[in-house]
Structures are given as structure tokens and as C-alpha cells.
């Protein structure tokens, strides 16, 4: 039996043996995942009581490595499900963990995140979706936005206001809501680049059972911090689906179909980052490389990219040494990502010349370049705007004082959006 003290070699041997006995690419996906969960290899960093082994990151990486070597399919890995499962694991009751964790791992139940609202973007804690306790359930009214995969979701992690008479961070509660009910309506939200990766979710007298309040009433903001820190870690992470995506066998077809749905919202994310990797190849291909002005702008983009990659690596090394905190360095990296994307898009425009007027199948690289130009504006907004990152950097790294606030009293009295301009 392996545990936290197990050596990497022991773990590798144990996983290998277990996979040799249980894994087969002709098993149905659902059945295989049940075995995986029963076997305790579904989520190695989780505690033993909940399908895991209590492994550290290094040990878990060894498990993943063996899975990759054998081409074994792992648990369902859709982003929102991961956020939900980790938050429930950290803050849920035993009953909540028993009810919700397993179907997330097996992929039977999909989740979405219901945090942002049209009226509260950067100021998430200013949310106004209302939850009122009526008998043994909560009645929810309000609107959410930027809800990735909500149209496929069975459940949502929801932030709603339960108390309007306390300061804004103290009046929020965290709910687990059933998306398959009459009071919940999901509408796709089309973006300026033509994709619809997100949704709007309207809740009209939607219901949540009392037992589906996560944590205590009014604790929602601190629980949301768990979810948001995971979301920040995921920013810029690999969404390719791993090694198993290219293999052949019935289970891989099922897995690919699942991945296609899970990853569909992210197909344009590489373009959002500016595709600095394409600059040299494109400029050499169409001769723009001989233009000194184009060369300057390509060089600027590549310098930024190099600097950001090196600074990120240095931050990881510092973090491993245990001397530095994580978040502010992440903010510098996020700010740099915006700068790289904008500069790369600028250089792409110069490389294209008149062809920058075209989009879609008629345009270069089957529309990829046009998609870069129309997707880059998202990177400095998603996951915390540049302006919020600059607040974090200037206040937490540089120690500059905060702006005066006008939202510290009871939320009922806090100024809100001006409706009639």
C-alpha cells in the first residue's frame, strides 16, 4: 500500500501492476472510470477516503506519467468540474463529498461556474444575485455571465447574496445548484470573434436545497477564494487533452468525443495569446522579413516572449525555494501575456499587409491570423483584467497604498451601476 512516504519507484511499480490488471482500451469509458475510482487511482492527491492516495504533486506526476506511458485514460478533466470538485473537497460536508465528487471524476455529471454577473465584473464581490431561504430550500433570482460550458452542465457552483445588511464580502454564500430545472435558463453568448465559448445564465425562482449550501451562510467569499486560486493556476495551462488523444481503440473514441465537448470553448485560446510562435515563419514565408520595420516589431514581440518565459521560470525556482509568494508573480506574468499578445498581433498585422483585411477561409492560415487579431482583446480581460493585475502588483509587490473605498458599509447602501445614463 502506497502513501505519502512511498518512493517514486514503488509508486510506478504499483500503478503499472494495477493498470496491467485493469486497463484495457476496449472497455467502455464509464465502466473503466468506475474501476479507476474504485481502485483509488482517480485523483492521487485526494485523501484516501475520497478516491485518492494523499500523494504530493511529485508522486501524483509519477502516476500520471505511468498512465501516459500505457495510454490509459484518466478521469474527466473539464475545467469547471475540476474547480467544483476541489472546492467541494476542501469545504464540503461528508454528504456533499459522497454525493458530488465521484460523478465528476467519472464524467457522468458536468459542472459550470456561476460567479460573474453583468453588474459585477472586476468587482466580483459586488454581485447581486439573490438567495432567499424559504422553508427547506433557497430561492435564487439573478443573472450570471461568462459561464463556460453551462449549456452542458448538470450542476453549477453559484455565488449569491444572502445578506444585504452587512459589508459586501460578508453577505455572500456558496451554493451547489441543479442546472436541470425550470428556473434556470442558459443562453449562449456570442463574442466579437464569432465564437460562443460562454453563456449567460438566468435564474428565476430557481431552487437549491438547504443541504446544497457549501460551507456556512455568509462564508461564500472565502470559499470562492479556493475556486479562484485554482482558476488562476489553470490560466494558460495545457488544454490539448494529453497523450491519449491520438491513440486507437473504442475507449479513445469515447474519450475524444468527451474532450471535444470539454475543449470546444478553448479552440481560439492560442490565438488569444497572439501566436508569437508564427511570426518568423510567416514573415519569412511572404517576404515581409526583408522590411526593417516589420523586423523591429517581430523582434519586440520575441523579446517580450523570451523575457516572460524566463521570468516565469525564475519565479517557479524561487517558489520552490520557499522564499517567495505566488500570486503577485503570477500577476506580472499575466500582464506580460497581454503585452506579448498585443505586440504579436501588431506584428502579424504588419506581416499581413493588405491581407489583414480578410478573415475566415479566404485569409491566411485558414483564418488563424484574423482570429488572432480579433481574439487578443480578450486576454487582457479574462481571468482578471490588466487593471486589476496592476492593482495587485502595485499594492502587494510594491506596497503602494490602496485607493480610498466607497463600498465598506452595508451592501444595501453601496452605490451600484447607474441604469439610466
Amino acid at each position, binding site marked *: 500500500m502506497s502513501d505519502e512516504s512511498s518512493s517514486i519507484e514503488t509508486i510506478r511499480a504499483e500503478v503499472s501492476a494495477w493498470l496491467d490488471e485493469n486497463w484495457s482500451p476496449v472497455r467502455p469509458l464509464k465502466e473503466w472510470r468506475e474501476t479507476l475510482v474504485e481502485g483509488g487511482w482517480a485523483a492521487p492527491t485526494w485523501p484516501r477516503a475520497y478516491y485518492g492516495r494523499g500523494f504530493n504533486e511529485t508522486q501524483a506526476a509519477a502516476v500520471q506519467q505511468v498512465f501516459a506511458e500505457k495510454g490509459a485514460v484518466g478521469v474527466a478533466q473539464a475545467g469547471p468540474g475540476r474547480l467544483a470538485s476541489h472546492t467541494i473537497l476542501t469545504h464540503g460536508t461528508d454528504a456533499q463529498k459522497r454525493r458530488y465528487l465521484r460523478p465528476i471524476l467519472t464524467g457522468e455529471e458536468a459542472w459550470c461556474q456561476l460567479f460573474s454577473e453583468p453588474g459585477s465584473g472586476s468587482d466580483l464581490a459586488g454581485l447581486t444575485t439573490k438567495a432567499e431561504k424559504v422553508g427547506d430550500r433557497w430561492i435564487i433570482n439573478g443573472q450570471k455571465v461568462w459561464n463556460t460550458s453551462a449549456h452542458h452542465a448538470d450542476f453549477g457552483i453559484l455565488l449569491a447574496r444572502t445578506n444585504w445588511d452587512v459589508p459586501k464580502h460578508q453577505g455572500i454564500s456558496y451554493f451547489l445548484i441543479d442546472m436541470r430545472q425550470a428556473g434556470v435558463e442558459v443562453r449562449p453568448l456570442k463574442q466579437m470573434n464569432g465564437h460562443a465559448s460562454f453563456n449567460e445564465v438566468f435564474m428565476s425562482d430557481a431552487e437549491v436545497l438547504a443541504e446544497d449550501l457549501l460551507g456556512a451562510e455568509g462564508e461564500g467569499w472565502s470559499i470562492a477564494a479556493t475556486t479562484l486560486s485554482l482558476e488562476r493556476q489553470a490560466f494558460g495551462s495545457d488544454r490539448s487533452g494529453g497523450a491519449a488523444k491520438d491513440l486507437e481503440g473504442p475507449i479513445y473514441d469515447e474519450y475524444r468525443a468527451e474532450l471535444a465537448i470539454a475543449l470546444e470553448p478553448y479552440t481560439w485560446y492560442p490565438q488569444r495569446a497572439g501566436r508569437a510562435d508564427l511570426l518568423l515563419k510567416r514573415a519569412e514565408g511572404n517576404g515581409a522579413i526583408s522590411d526593417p520595420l516589420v523586423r523591429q516589431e517581430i523582434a519586440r514581440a520575441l523579446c517580450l516572449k523570451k523575457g*516572460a518565459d524566463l521570468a516565469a521560470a525564475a519565479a517557479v525556482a524561487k517558489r520552490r525555494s520557499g522564499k517567495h509568494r505566488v500570486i503577485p508573480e503570477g500577476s506580472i506574468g499575466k500582464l506580460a501575456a497581454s503585452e506579448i499578445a498585443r505586440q504579436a498581433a501588431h506584428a502579424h498585422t504588419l506581416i499581413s499587409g493588405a491581407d489583414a483585411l480578410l478573415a475566415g477561409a479566404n485569409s491566411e492560415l485558414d483564418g488563424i491570423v484574423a482570429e488572432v487579431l480579433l481574439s487578443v482583446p480578450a486576454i487582457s480581460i479574462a481571468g482578471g483584467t490588466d487593471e486589476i493585475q496592476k492593482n495587485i502588483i502595485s*499594492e502587494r509587490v510594491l506596497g503602494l497604498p490602496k485607493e480610498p473605498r466607497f463600498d465598506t458599509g452595508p451592501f444595501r447602501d453601496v452605490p451600484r451601476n447607474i441604469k439610466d445614463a
Partner: protein
Amino acid sequence: MLSEDTEQFREVVARFLADKSPTQAVRKCMASAEGYEPDVWRQLCGEVGLAGTHLPERFGGFGFGPVELGITCQEMGRSLYCGPFFSSSVMAAHAILNQASNEQKERLLPGIADGSVIATLVLDNVADADRLGRSLFSDGARLDGTANMVVDAHIAQGFVVIASEGDGLAAFWVDAMQSGIDVEPLEALDPTRKLSRVSLSSVEGERLGDGPVDVTRLWDQLCTALAHEMIGGAEALFDSTIAYLKMRVQFGRPIGSFQALKHRAADLLMELELARAVTHEAARVLASGEGDPWTPNMAKAMAGDAYFAIAKQAIQLRGGIGFTWEEDVHLWFKRAKASEVLLGTPGWHREKMMMRMTKNSGGVDV
């Protein structure tokens, strides 16, 4: 990340310079004709041994590499140290290390390493490595011509002259005291780094080694060292500007609480972080021979842009006081502007980097 030993080295260098090169000392040096305090230079070379940071032990140095040289330069840039370190230990010594025979190195480097000899590098173009040798010539026996801007030539006892000879470039050791040499001090934009015009008229030079001058290698070494110096200066100026934003109160608040200003500070920090990361990488590439060979070009371009961006804002964010002679900011501002140009502007280095990259990827050469 630096090891603990190199961190300790940095602390020793930083302590010495904080003590010996406060801004009062910098102001005294910049107002003087010599431009440095010989006593401090002697201590720096003798007690601390910094002049030979990167020179091999058999030639009297510490035997450190580009990473530690970078540390020394970064700390000197931070304190705006005025002295012939960059001209003698960095510029001249690198040219000798690269080009000279073993016997010549044994003869020339120990004096530079212990500071008893001040040398400098005489280039007829200090901003464009591709245009060297257009006004300095060797006929095989004698050197002639003019170098318009030579760092610290007014105090140097020896010159390393790079001159054209036939179709190529050759390096020579020249005794600066001989007749036929005219050194005319110039008024420099940055008075903390003295410049002179050097004219050679049928001057005797000793050829260093017998190979052609490897200009690319030399430029990479000098630019990596200078980029470190620039990062140190940028750090000092950035830190003092942040301190000012916390201390200065207008409209009843510290001005650092205004988002218009704190966001600018965050932008500058990002630019500084990226430039610092690439600059340290350039030293690592030189030390290991592994990685992108054009990293020094990236470093000099990014350090140049970051240093001057910070210098501009260091004045703007201080308002009127930042424009006065009494306030120290202009000392770094001038160093930032001069360093942006010395050894090639950011634009020049971006072009150079593109040439090296596209050559490697089989692209079109311009």
C-alpha cells in the same frame, strides 16, 4: 536563480559600493576632470579585488565568469560607480582575453586585474559593431586614424586599438604614453562616464595574437556586462521612485494611491522584470555556451528600453523637483540615455538579433 555563494558575492560588492559611491561621491567625480577617485579605485582593485572579477586566476583575477561579472556591473550601475572598471576591466580586458596570445595575456592582464594599469578599448564606432575600422588603420607596422569617442582614454595608460588591416580587423596593444597620440577630452551627456577623442598618428602598436578580431563575441560580452550595469541603475531608480510615491502627499493622499500612477509603476516593474530575466540569461548563455546566441542582443535592447522608460518616469512622477540639478534623478537619467546608445541602440540590437535568428532558421538576410 543565483546560488548562495554568488548572493554573498553580491552583498560584498553592494556594501562596498554603498559605502564608497554615494551620490555625493558621484557628483564629485562627475565634476572633476579625472572622473574618478584614485583611492577608491585602488581599494576596489586591491582589498576587494573586483577589477579582476571575471579574469582567470593565472592572470591575476578571481576566476569568476560572466554571471559574477554581471553582478559586479549590476551593483556598479546601481550606485553609478565612477571609475575605469567598465573601460579597463570590461572593455579592454575582454578584447585582450579574446585576442591575445598566452604570453601577452600573462604580461598585460595582471596589471589590469590589480588596477595598477588602466586600459581602455579604442573603437572608431561605439554604437555600431558593423562599422568598425573605418577610421582606424594599421599598415602592419604603424597605426593611424581617429576614434571619436573613447571611454576613459584621458586616464588610460594602455589602449587596445581595433583597426582595419587589409580586408579585416586586427587588435593592438598601444602604450598610451608614446608620442603621436592625442587625447582630447569631450563634454559627455553623461558626465559619470568620461569620453575623449583619440587621434593616432604613426603610432607603434603590438598586434594581439594573430587571428582576426571576433567582433561578435566581443560585442556580446561587452553588451551583456553593460546590460547588467543598466539593470542595476534601473533598479535603483525604480526603487527610489516607488519610495517617493509612498512619501509624497497631494490632494490629501500619498500620490502612490492614485491608480493613474500605481498602474504606471506596475507597467515599469513588468518591463524591468522581463529585461532583468533576459539579461541574466545572456550571462548564463555566455558562461555555458548553451542557449540562443543572440540573447545578449535581446538583453541590451530590453535593458536599454527599460532603463530609459524608468528614467523618464522617475522624473515625471517626481514633478518639478525631478527636473532640478539638486535632486539626484538626473544622474541616472543621463547614464540611462548614454547607455541606451553606447554599444548600440535597442533598435540596432533588435535588427542584429533578427539577422542572427533568421540566419539560423535559413531565412532571408538583409
